[in-house]
Each structure stands twice: as structure tokens, then as C-alpha cells.
């Protein structure tokens, strides 16, 4: 009895994971970079949900955002610029049992990987996505991104960015099959965590755009929102976020929004001032591609042999006297 009790204790010990179990080295982001807040929230989420590190994969593309897997102690896949989504989809399709996360940026997702982003929303695989949106290319040292504000002076737009910025929320909400669209800001970490947790718990493709400060190349851009809480609009609902008293008193600009209402979600998504924060859309009933395609079936050699023989039968010329089966 004592032996089985001790093995039970060992099992409990093995299966419980602390925050350190997800912390994989010192991040090399700049001081004050909003990515640190996203990483912290992500590590806390893994610990709180007690995700087995060996069954968890963080996939990323290229850019500052995409260094995140290196700072986790789970499995990670730091792939190519723009290609995190199809890599993550392949992983999920081959192994639906794995917890798959994607960490991407405004250049990675909305520019070079835009085609994959649209289709990833459409596939609706059970993957949790964080879009680190700092409105600028950081790793290549300050070029305009698709979400850069008009007039931004950068190394590729020395006279100011000429185009209107893309709105990743309205784009996402325009895609048939999208099932979870939310927005967070790095400077309200408590709400960011709540949004990420809801995203993780949603079964489907959970897309969270996080407006994230870049102190190096965009030092003042978000100041108006940081200095005036009224310019952040928190979305609340019993099926969405419920706010702690502290947050509720600090951010008075609140709006009740039922995340099942996609028309209202699209209206809210179009706002750029105040910035909406919370869950814009959630449809728990949207089917997941991996379920529709029956991913992860077990296949015995006998099963494969029988199927193959059925196909060979279609094309076989039997020798004289052979009784066709």
C-alpha cells in the first residue's frame, strides 16, 4: 500500500507544473517591449491550465513576436516568415492531441502570411493565436507594416506612411468560419490574461490581436491610450469577460457585448478610438477542420494492407485460371 501511495505522490508531483516549468531562458526583447507581457501571460496560462510541456507546441514565424517559442520550455517551432499558420495546421492535423499555439506579428501575419491567415480562420482548427501588433517591423529595424498608422515615418516611409492601416479585427471577422476574435492590450495584463485563457478554452481557431508597445521604434504612439483610460473600451458579458473590481474602477468605459452577435462585433471592430478590448466574437459551434477530416485515426498495418489490396484489385489482370476474389 505504501508503495502505491508513494507512486501516487510521484505521479501527482510529475503531473503538476509550476510557472518555472514553462520559462525557458531570458527573453532578448528590448526593455519595455510589450512582448514580455504576452510571454508572461502565456506562461501563467500554461501553468494554470497545467498543460503538459511535452504535449504543447508553440509555433511562430519570423519577427520579434516569433522569438516567443524560444522563451518557453515546451516544444517549439520557429518557422519561416509568414508560414507559422500552415506549419501549426500540419502539426494539429497530424497530432490533434497536442496543444498548439501560434505567436505571430503584424508583418508576419498581416503582410507576408496574409493568405495563410485568412485560410487559417476558415479552417478553424483548434489552435490559439496571439498576434503581437506593434504597428511596425522591429527585427528588421523600423519599416512600415500593414497596421502602421498613416503618416508614420519609418526607414521605408521617410516622408510618412501613405496608406490607411489595415484593421486585423475587421479582416478576421469578414472570414466565413472564423470562430473566436478578441483584442487585448499589453498594458492591461490582467485582462490580457483573461482573454488568452478564454481563447485557449475555446475549441476552434482563437485569434487574439494584442496591441503591443514597441519602445524602440514606436515610443510615443500608444501614449494617448495609456494616459487616458477612457480611450480603452472594455467589452463585458456573462459569456465574455467579467471584470475584477479593480479593473472595473480603473477603466470606466465599458460596454456590454454578447460575443455571439457578429454584426455588433463587426461594428465594434471598426472602432479605433476608443480601442475595444475583450472578446468580440465567439461561436462555440463552428466545426473544426481536424474534426471534419477525422484527424488522428489509428491505423493498423492490416487496415492499410486491406485498403491497398482493394485498390490493387481494381487494376489487376489475373493470370489464366485465377479465380477472381
Amino acid at each position, binding site marked *: 500500500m505504501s508503495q502505491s501511495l508513494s507512486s501516487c505522490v510521484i505521479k501527482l508531483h510529475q503531473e503538476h507544473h509550476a510557472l518555472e516549468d514553462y520559462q*525557458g531562458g531570458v527573453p532578448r526583447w528590448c526593455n519595455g517591449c510589450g512582448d514580455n507581457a504576452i510571454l508572461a501571460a502565456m506562461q501563467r496560462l500554461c501553468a494554470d491550465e497545467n498543460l*503538459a*510541456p*511535452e*504535449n504543447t*507546441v*508553440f*509555433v511562430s514565424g519570423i519577427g520579434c513576436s516569433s522569438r516567443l517559442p*524560444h522563451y*518557453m*520550455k*515546451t*516544444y*517549439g*517551432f*520557429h*518557422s*519561416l516568415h509568414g*508560414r507559422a*499558420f*500552415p*506549419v*501549426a*495546421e*500540419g*502539426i*494539429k*492535423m*497530424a*497530432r490533434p*492531441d*497536442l496543444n498548439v499555439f501560434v505567436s505571430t506579428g503584424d508583418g508576419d501575419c498581416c503582410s507576408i502570411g496574409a*493568405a*495563410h491567415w*485568412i*485560410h487559417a480562420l476558415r479552417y478553424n482548427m483548434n489552435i490559439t493565436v496571439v498576434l503581437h501588433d506593434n504597428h511596425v517591423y522591429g527585427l528588421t529595424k523600423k519599416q512600415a507594416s500593414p497596421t502602421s498608422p498613416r503618416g508614420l515615418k519609418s526607414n521605408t516611409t521617410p516622408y510618412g506612411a501613405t496608406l490607411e492601416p489595415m484593421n486585423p479585427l475587421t479582416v478576421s471577422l469578414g472570414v466565413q468560419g472564423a470562430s473566436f476574435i478578441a483584442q487585448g492590450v499589453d498594458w492591461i495584463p490582467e485582462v490580457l490574461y483573461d482573454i488568452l485563457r478564454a481563447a485557449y478554452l475555446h475549441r476552434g481557431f482563437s485569434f487574439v490581436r494584442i496591441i503591443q508597445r514597441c519602445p524602440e521604434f514606436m515610443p510615443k504612439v500608444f501614449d494617448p491610450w495609456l494616459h487616458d483610460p477612457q480611450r480603452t473600451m472594455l467589452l463585458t458579458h456573462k459569456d465574455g469577460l467579467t471584470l475584477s473590481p479593480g479593473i472595473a474602477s480603473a477603466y470606466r468605459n465599458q460596454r456590454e457585448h454578447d460575443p455571439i452577435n457578429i454584426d455588433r462585433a463587426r461594428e465594434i471592430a471598426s472602432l479605433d478610438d476608443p480601442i475595444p478590448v475583450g472578446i468580440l466574437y465567439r461561436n462555440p459551434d463552428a466545426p473544426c477542420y481536424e474534426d471534419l*477530416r*477525422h*484527424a488522428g*485515426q*489509428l*491505423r493498423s*498495418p492490416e*487496415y*492499410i*494492407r*486491406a*485498403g*491497398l*489490396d*482493394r*485498390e*490493387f484489385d481494381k*487494376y*489487376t*489482370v*489475373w*493470370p*489464366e485460371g*485465377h479465380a477472381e476474389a
Partner: protein
Amino acid sequence: MTHSATLAAPEVILPAPRPATAIPEAIVEVISDSGEGAQRCGQSLGAIAARMGNGIWTTEIIPAEIQPPARSVAGASGIRIRMGSGRITNGGDQTELVVAFNEQVLIGRVQAGELKPGAKILLECMWKTHRDPAVVISYMKTVEALLKDGFEVYEVPLEDRCRELVSDPRKGKNMFVLGILCNVYGLDDDLAREQIARIFGKKDAKVVASNIKLYEAGAAWAEANLDFKYCIPAVKSTVPQIVVNGNTAIALGVMASGMDICAMYPITPATSASHYLSEVFEKIGGLVHQAEDEIAACAFAVGASYAGKCAVTITSGPGYSLKQEVIGLAVMAEIPLVVVNVQRGGPSTGQPTKVEQGDALSAIFGSHGDAPKVVMAPNSIEDCFYSVITARKIAETFGMVVVVLSDASLSTAQQPFPRPVFSEAWLAPPVDMTPVPVGSKAYDWDPMTGLSRRLQPGRAGGMHTVTGLAHDRNSKVAYDPAINEEGLRARSLKLAALQKTLKAPPVFGGDSGDLLLIGWGSTMGAIEESVTRLRAEGQAVSSMHLRFLQPMPSGIREILARFKHAMTIEGNWSDKPEDELIDEDNRRYSALAMLLRSRFLVDIDCWSEARGQPIKPGDICRVAREALKRRGALS
């Protein structure tokens, strides 16, 4: 001579069947406008002949458009069927008998020199009485020219006869023609009826019955109106054989290899492999994912391979170019991957439906930086099947990308081969999820072979982040000069480790001699047939065919040394020495010649053509004789 069959009394049943001339083989073509079913007719003819025990090879003639203008030279859609007493390995030289649904589609074949002098032409004669005088004039002029050129023209009332049986004769002519051809070549009527039932089996019994009627009418017409008949003696195989085209063989190979996932994007001429796989893969628990683009298809396959069993992506040249960056990632991260490239004419969009062997160098050297990968080229329909199984095994054993270079010729060609007998050894092993000690290295490169164990998600203790950045043994990003070279060395050594396991290619013909012809991929049948013919003439010619382009097996150097001269025969571009500006300082050699010259420092010549047609054995014979003559070795 002209045979005005239309004037003969219809359906005269002769007292005794006309005598059949025994011939060792025949080359037949059926040519029509797109959508008239010439290919279905030819495939059926091939299948019936194969069931009787004949060797066959079918070659499809496909226009690039789905509905090209009717009655146009460029719109010719059809099929060549070569049938013989023995094994047939290629489409042969020139057609001896052609059935054409209009004179325009025939013109292109005549101009391209695809018809044998004096060939028999069975020509639909409805155009002779067409209400548009221009059509009538065109038809009459063409017939006149064909006769003047010495062809034998038989006018066939396809439309008239089929209208007696079906409301839309355009849809029925092909089975009428099948009846004619089965009668001409003495093929078994019962097997033909079975074949028709097989084709239309998915539709209702009425459709089958009406097509059998068309078939029988065609056979009766031929019996009554044609003055020639052949018999190709057949030897029934003692083992079961399967008759499929190269793309179907690739799809069957994917299933047989135990791979779970194929990710693809539609592209000619590779798509039919994915079509077939989409139809049957799920029945054995596999899955075809049609991705949003070629890049995504490759990345999806890489993701699936990373976490599960090795995956495959199937494409053609333009798609292959798009996949290059992701292929480089798989090389860098040492993720197994099978990439099938069904080559077509290039560069750019090139000739989508035509054959070319233009991608060998981009497959070997493609992706920036040093990106070693394995490149194989199947040389027959059977080899398409087994190559995929081998590719999967190598990919997984060595943690490498394996590129399988098929081509448009193999993709649609049909040839019987012994029915494969399933072996469990073909299958991929399940993903190893046994825990490893914490701190296990993600890339524990063996100092001699460069090989390392794979740590896949699910393995406790093995957590790490794979990356396309330079990395150390722990998969940690590293810019240290020595570590960068350590990784490059390990990835390169894996090719050497594989190379040590490869056997020297066999030599076809004699072990030594005046000339060695060297090829790769789909040209093997044509090259070996030409060697057989040349040796029968007394020429000391042999051939060698490479299945592995990268790495190349040992033993080639020794083989080259036994021949006075060597030249490659390839379906790609090489500069022609007779062009004024071309000399030895600037001549661009064919891909394989370039590879062999650089590796073995031997003056290997090349002959290549990129006409979008399979290379003909007769052309290879001519080229070989010229090469022997230049060197004073022609017997």
C-alpha cells in the same frame, strides 16, 4: 489509295472473318477534339490488350486548355497506344494506324512527324458533307494532301453510324472506335464488354448497354468494311499484374508507405495523383489536405512531419519553385519530408501538359545556402510506386527531404507491372513517444554519419524549439562560426552515409564498349530499346540509368572507364554545338551531363531535346550512330 468505305453497303456480314496478319507490335493513335473521349477509348484499348497478355504503353496527348476551339490543330486531344507481344517500355517511334475525329487534329500529328510513312488513317468523313463549305474544302484538301504524301486514308462514317444508336453521337464515337480497333487487332470481345462495364459501371445499366451497342456496331463496321486485320500474339502473364498510370502508382505508393498526410495544391500534371489519393486515402485513415497555396501545402506537410509520421507534398515545377524556402527549412531543422515533383515544361508556366526533365538541378541545388537533400527519379510506372516507399523510408531514417522527380510522360502513361505484395516493412513506424532524460540533445549528431535521433512532441524530457536559424546540438540559436560549420557538416554527412548504402547502377547491354548512353527518369524504356536495336546492328553500345541523382552511388567512375565514349540522353535543354556562338567555353550541358562531368572529370557529351514529347527510341538510335560515326566507331 483511298478507300471510300462510305459507298460500300452497310453492315455486310462476310461469310468468314478476314485473315489476320501476325505482327510483333503496333502503334495506334486516337485523336479528337477535347471532350470526345479519345483518351478513354485508348486507355480501354490498352487495358483490354493488357488483360489479353500483351505488353502496352499508353501516352496521352493533352491540350493545355479544357475546351480548346473545336477542329483546331492545337486542340488535338488524344492518346497513343503501343501494344506488343513482349514488355513495352515506351511509346515507340511513329504511329502506324491513327483514328482521327476530324482532319484538323490530324494535321498537327502529321506535321510533327508522328505518323509513319504510309500509315493507315481512319478519318471521320462527316466533314465531307458539312453545311459550311469552308469545312468541306478543308477536309477535301487535307485528304488529298494525305493521299499525295502516301498515307492510306479510310473514310469512316462515325457520326452517321453512331446517330443510328444514340442521340448524341459526339459522346458515343469513342466506343464505336474502340469496336473498330478491337476488331482490327483481334482483341477479345468479352474482355472489351467487361472493360466497358467497368468504365460506365458507376452509371446505370442503360448507359453500359448503349455503349456496348456502340462497341459492337464499330466492330461489325470494321469487319464489313476494312481489308486489313492483325493479331499481336500475347503471352498471358503467370503472375497477377496491375495496369495503372504513373500518377496512380505514386498515389498507391503514398498509401503503401504508411504515410498519413498528403498536402497539395492543384497543378498540372501532378493533380491526378492527388485526385486519386483524395478518393481513396481516407478509406485507410489517411488524409489529403488541399492547401491555400503551394507554400502552405509544403509548410503543412512539414508541420505534420515534425509532429507525426513523414508527410508528402505533390507538385510540379512552378509549385516546386514556390516550395523551395520551406524545403530549406525542413533541411535545416532535419524534418523528414517527401516532395513529389511531376515535372513539366519550364521555365515559368512553360508547357503544363508536356513532358520535360528540367528540374534536376533545381531539385539538387534549390533553396538558398547549402541545403543537401536526396533526389530520386523513378524510371517506369512500377518504379513510381516503389520510389515513394523508398523515399519515405530514407526521409525518416536520415531526417532529410527526399525529392521524387517523376514527369508528365510517366504521369499519364500506363504500363502493366507485377501486382505488389504488401509488406509491413513498407510502413512508417508509429511516432516514438517514450520519454528521454531531461537535457537530451535535439541534434545529437553522430560524428561519422551526421545522423541524430528525432525528438518529437509528446516525448517528455525532449522539449526544444526547432528553428530555421543556425543552431547548436540543443537547437539553440547560435551564430558561433564553429557551431555553424558543425551543423552544415552533419547535414552534409547524412548524404554520404546514405550514399554508402547505394548500389552501382546496372549496365544494360555489354559491360564495356564504344559508347555508353546515360539517362535518368522516364527515358529508361526508350534508351534501353535503342540499345537493343543498336546492338542488333552490331554497335558496341550500352546504357546506364540513374535512379539516384543525389547522392550518386559509387561505381559510376569504374563503369565510365570501361567505355570509349559516354553521353547523356535527356529531356531538357542543352546548347547545340552547331550553333555559331556555342563552343566548349560557353556550352550549357544537360543537367545530368553537367553533374557527371563535374564529379568524374570525364568528357561526357550530351544530347537532349525539350520538344514536350517523350524521346523516341529511333531518335536515340540516330543520335548514337552519329556519335559513333564522329568518333570513327560506327560498325
